[in-house]
């Protein structure tokens, strides 16, 4: 594998992790502390804010973990089809 330097274009996975962490915290908070009976009736008894808040926190963790496990890097020589970055 070619020698690596820091990637020119930033890593989207970090942004996605950030977005879903913030949304997850907001929704989980809403689900735990600000759910009225009316809200529950609307969603047929499901506390949808809480459920989706937790799902989003999990999503944030997945993106964070993925980005940590396989960090973005580009080879010094970028010849077509021969790059050494591994992020899929």
């Amino acid at each position: 594998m070619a020698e690596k330097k820091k990637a020119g274009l930033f890593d989207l996975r970090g942004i996605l992790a950030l977005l879903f962490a913030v949304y997850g915290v907001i929704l989980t908070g809403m689900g735990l502390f600000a759910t009225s009976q009316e809200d529950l009736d609307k969603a047929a008894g499901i506390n949808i804010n809480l459920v989706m808040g937790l799902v989003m926190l999990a999503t944030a963790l997945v993106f964070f973990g993925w980005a940590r496990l396989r960090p973005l890097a580009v080879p010094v020589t970028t010849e077509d089809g021969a790059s050494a970055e591994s992020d899929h």
Partner: protein
Amino acid sequence: MHYLADADLRLDAGPIDYAILIIYFALVLGIGAMARRSVNSSLDFFLSGRSLPAWVTGLAFISANLGAVEIFGMTANGAQYGLPTMHYYWIGAIPAMVFLGLVMMPFYYGSKVRSVPEFLLRRFGRFAHLTNGISFAIAQVLIAGVNLFALATVVNLLLGWPLWVSIVVASAIVLAYTSLGGLSAAVYNEVMQFFVIVAMLLPLTFVGLHKVGGWQGLVDKIAPEVKGGEVAGSTADQLSSWPAMNLTGIGSATLSVLGVVFGLGFVLSFGYWTTNFAEVQRAMSAKSMSAARRTPLIGAYPKTLIALIIIIPGMIAAVLVPELRAVKAGTGDGSVTYNESILLLIRDLLPNGMLGIGITGLLAAFMAGMAANVSSFNTVFTYDIWQAYVVKDKPDDYYLKVGRMITVVGCVVAIGTAFIASTFDNIMDYLQTLFGFFNAPLFATFILGMFWKRMTPLAGGLGLIMGTASAVTVDTLNRVGVLDLAGQGASFVAASAAFVVDIAVSVAVSLVTKPKPESELRGLVWSLTPRDQLRHDDTGENAGWFRKPVVLGAGVLALTVVLNIIFW
């Protein structure tokens, strides 16, 4: 008439919902500013320097299409027609995306062209190039206006902002990030939008299903579609995807299936997904041939499944929402239409918090739709019109500057289009259908040109013009009542006509004109391209059986067949 609709649809957005919306758009602009740093050349600006990983381009590939027309249109179709709507995905999009990845992408990426019109220039010369370049540029900038108008309408309905404020604010945001960060910013935001849209659609589907009593509850409660006192679509029609006679409006089951498979599946969808540069551009920005081929294939998996969480909520809306039940029973008062299905469902199912996600998802989708139009428009304008015919042979930063300038022009024209649309919305509907017709003959020209080396430059250009003309003719005949096709059948027939006429004209013209010399067609025509030029590197990060395009393509086709059988 619209006053009532406004009052009905106003959502109770609270401070939390606004906070969610603001966080999203702060990130959108942040991505634009950060992507700015990686733009050093025109190729960086227009094609992300061909550097993006396949999962990013794959999600952007389907996200670019997940705009206003798709989200409103497909939930509306779900509410009105039911399961036959699935054909737009499983017969339409998926096979075409697989074909693009397996067969066509090696030509696009391998020939190093920077746009779809540029491929036409290399294969057929200037006539076909100009025909396609100009029609594409005009279509994109006008459709950007349609997306902008749809967005402003939603903001107006949901949040009560005046139309012009939303038009100006939304276009300013799109302009800011597309002119700063170019395609990279557009693509990154499309991926982010994809996840937010899914975060909106998933709970709508699950909560909705829970509320109607599960799948069986939905099946039991679904109502026949009544139009003018007659049943236009029985419940049985809506609950099985074949023969889709309620969708096509074609009276014979055999012809209806033929219309779906050939018109929608083969011509319309292959035309759209394989030749529309707004889509193909995402794949061209991938970092290697392998990643470019995997782009539409990776996109195809979520595309297959998104059909479920976009069409089923539509069907649920027609059962749960009282206003839509009235529309379906033919007793609606005109205050709502099927197009509002998703808005009504959000209103009825999502509490504050998730409501903010819903609003953000919709606005993000429309804005990303507009950004996709703008970012493909500026590329085609700069490379295929300005650099090719107007100001040639300037240094690269000149074209980067032109690209940024024309992005501004594109957004301004889109604002104009949006304002025109706000006074004549039927015209916009019509334009949109019309532009759809540019794609159908394009596919015929591409496929013939890629596999028949004898096809001549004149045939390329004339085929496109005659094909489009015949689609417009069929559509006009249907509109004035000479042909009588209700439903969506008319566009299937129009597209089929365009395809057949394009092939016929191209073959006839080719036989009497002189083809290009074979030496100029290397890499552009199947039989003249060395096989190893169509192959890609499959070592390193492109290694592994699960990254083989054939395996990915076969996998998604198998998934689609299974879903087709389940929802037969």
